[in-house]
């Protein structure tokens, strides 16, 4: 008579094999870090990103090879923002903090009230035409001052395009560094902001106090 055997299913064998060859989190993190370093050296990262704690929650900072390309508030959903960057710029998007360390440090200094100008390369390729002209002008609005949407429209070359100037501000890919928060309504009310009206108020109050 045959010896009775307890048959082991293919799936159990597979599960035991998988357990024997599965790497732990620390190992995978170590390999990932090595990969990112090498990808950076080989010029294979088209968009690098990191997050930064700010008075307005976690900010996403992203850079192309040409400079800071995106700053996103939490309410914009970082995951969606990264997916858009992958579609609009390149899918070679990696969490690589080093290229953004300088931007993070300058933003920290700004939030602490110790910095009035950003000395950063900015890549505004995500804004085109008139929107781009508006953003280029915004960079000339000084710390602690404000301008009306109408004045911005005029400065960007289209005095009647007030609404379009507002739209350019609300689609600013690099808020804070490109100071769209310094643009307010002609009637003195604050106007909308990507990061919420409260964030805009806080930024203006901080700059006024500094």
């Amino acid at each position, binding site marked *: 008579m045959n010896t009775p055997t307890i048959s082991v299913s293919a799936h159990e064998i597979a599960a035991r094999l998988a357990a024997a060859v599965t790497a732990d989190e620390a190992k995978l993190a170590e*390999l990932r870090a090595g990969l990112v370093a090498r990808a950076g050296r*080989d010029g294979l990262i088209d968009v690098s990103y990191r997050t930064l704690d700010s008075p307005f929650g976690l900010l996403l900072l992203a850079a192309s090879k040409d400079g800071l390309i995106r700053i996103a508030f939490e309410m914009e959903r970082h995951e969606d923002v990264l997916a858009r960057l992958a579609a609009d710029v390149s899918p070679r998007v990696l969490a690589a903090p080093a290229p953004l360390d300088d931007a993070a440090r300058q933003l920290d200094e700004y939030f602490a009230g110790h910095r009035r100008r950003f000395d950063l390369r900015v890549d505004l390729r995500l804004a085109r035409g008139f929107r781009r002209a508006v953003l280029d002008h915004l960079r000339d609005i000084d710390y602690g001052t404000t301008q009306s949407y109408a004045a911005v429209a005029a400065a960007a070359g289209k005095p009647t395009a007030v609404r379009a100037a507002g739209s350019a501000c609300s689609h600013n890919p690099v808020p804070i560094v490109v100071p769209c928060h310094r643009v307010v309504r002609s009637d003195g009310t604050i106007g909308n902001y990507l990061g919420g009206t409260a964030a805009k108020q806080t930024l203006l109050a901080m700059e006024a106090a500094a």
Partner: protein
Amino acid sequence: MSVPGQPFEELISEHGPVVMRVCRAMLGPADADDAWSETFIAALHAYPDLRPASNVRGWLVTIAHNKAIDILRRAARAPRPTADVAQRPNTESTERLDAPVDDDLRTALDRLPPKQRGAVVYRYLADMAYADVAALLDSSEAAARRSAADGIAALRTVLHRPDPKGQRP
């Protein structure tokens, strides 16, 4: 499920572990690390050109398969005394591999004929469809199924080997 065009970072978090299992099942630990890194570097190079309808995991496992073959061939050419290119996991490795009982299973996997081993790894560890497994192993789908079944049967005998000290319950 990741799709082509997603941020590459998501591919690493989603598929990094399965690529690692495949590399470790085909290679010793140090070589597996190299194969993992080579796989993702090659994938990063090619990623913008990946066709939109592609199966990302299958694509990554295919790259890993090719990297593992490259490494095995290099090792076979190198005149090293450790001719067994599919070395057992080194217990001196910095990382603890799993339960001792499964060392036998692991050794048995290493000793399977290449097609059986490949079929078991790609079907059961990478969860690929037999059609894709067949393409990787350069055989027919029916042959891939047979290889996987034969491989599993061979591994099962290891688990059923009678205990030398006496009978099993």
